[in-house]
């Protein structure tokens, strides 16, 4: 602030054109520029260049690794698809086999059951036939006896032969 009184005459002009200060400014500027140059070129710039190169390297490596992983993932997906298809095929084969086996078992059982049913039916038929026969026999007996009794009651002498023949003829009729 003390220089402001002396600077009163300068205030009209430009301090930039005060040539007496030029050597001073130039001297200190050159020193400052040299200092900045050495600070930048010796310390800062190699450091930043190294960091940038390292970063670039890291990024490149990471990208390559990512690409590799992507390929691996695609491969894994393929393998998975294949395994899935195999498993499906196997499963359907197993299902088909099981079905065939069950069908075979079923056929055997059915045949057995059919045979059994047929045997039972034949037996039952025989039994029914026997029953029918015996029933017819009994009916004949009863009819003969009844006919003899009727003839006797009516006062005739029942001829066993004719009665039997008549009953048989009736039964057939």
């Amino acid at each position, binding site marked *: 602030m*003390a*220089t*402001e009184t002396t*600077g009163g005459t*300068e*205030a009209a*002009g*430009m*301090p*930039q*054109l*005060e040539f*007496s*200060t*030029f*050597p*001073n*400014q*130039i*001297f*200190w*500027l*050159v*020193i*400052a*520029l040299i*200092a*900045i*140059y050495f*600070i*930048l*070129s010796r*310390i*800062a*710039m190699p*450091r*930043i*260049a*190294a*960091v*940038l190169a*390292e*970063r670039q390297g*890291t990024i490149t490596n990471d990208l390559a690794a990512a690409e590799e992983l992507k390929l691996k993932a695609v491969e894994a997906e393929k393998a998975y698809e294949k395994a899935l298809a195999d498993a499906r095929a196997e499963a359907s084969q197993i299902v088909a086999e099981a079905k065939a086996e069950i069908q075979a078992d079923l056929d055997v059982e059915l045949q057995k059951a059919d045979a059994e049913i047929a045997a039972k039916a034949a037996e039952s038929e025989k039994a029914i036939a026997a029953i029918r026969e015996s029933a017819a026999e009994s009916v004949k007996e009863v009819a003969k006896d009844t006919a003899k009794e009727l003839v006797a009651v009516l006062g005739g002498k029942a001829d066993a032969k004719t009665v039997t023949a008549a009953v048989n003829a009736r039964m057939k009729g």
Partner: protein
Amino acid sequence: MADEAKGGIEIHPMDQFIVKPLFGDGAINWYTPTNVTLWLFFAVVAVTLLMVVGTRGRAIVPSRSQSVGEMAYGFVYKMVEDVAGKEGLKYFPYIFTLFMYILLANFLGLIPMSFTTTSHIAVTAVLAGAVFITVTVLGFVKNGAGFLSLFWVSSAPLVLRPILAIIELISYFVRPVSHSIRLAGNVMAGHAVLKVFAGFAASLGVFSFIPIFGIVAIYALEVLVSAIQAYVFTILTCVYLKDALHPHH
């Protein structure tokens, strides 16, 4: 500065640019530590803080300050590569030094009550002059007399070529002048306008809020100008370097 304004509207927008000795009141010799020295020192400190202390982590995933340092590095590196080509990358450290100095000096100058080294013609003339001399010498060393083909526009009709050569020659020698005055002029004008508005604010009393809004707006503009002028200075350096490396049109 506020004391002066009380005496009426007496604004000294240029006082902020006066070079003063740091100690005492004597004459300014070439070695005298001045406010220029102090703020140049701060610029060196700022560069160190950002580019050395900020990047000390060397992290793959950068911290905030490391990120900013890397961004500045990458920005200038790409600029040199795009404009001057692969051969220009040899000169990247010099160009990066220029860029970091101008950028941080501009930003430091925006601190209130600070001194803006880049507002001085002496400073920017040294920068632009160094670029001009380096590029010219480099052009002749790399291309020999072939560097003169920069001034001989072979795509133009033969009759026009001598006239164009004169124009090209003049424009070539005007380069350092425009290169330096563009930077100093932009920075100086913005700071002077800020000071003028501050003077208004001091003298308007109740209505001082109007110039204060103005100051805020201009300050924002100055932040932009600080970065843009550093960018412009650097990219022009790259263009000149390209001319030196590949002078053929």
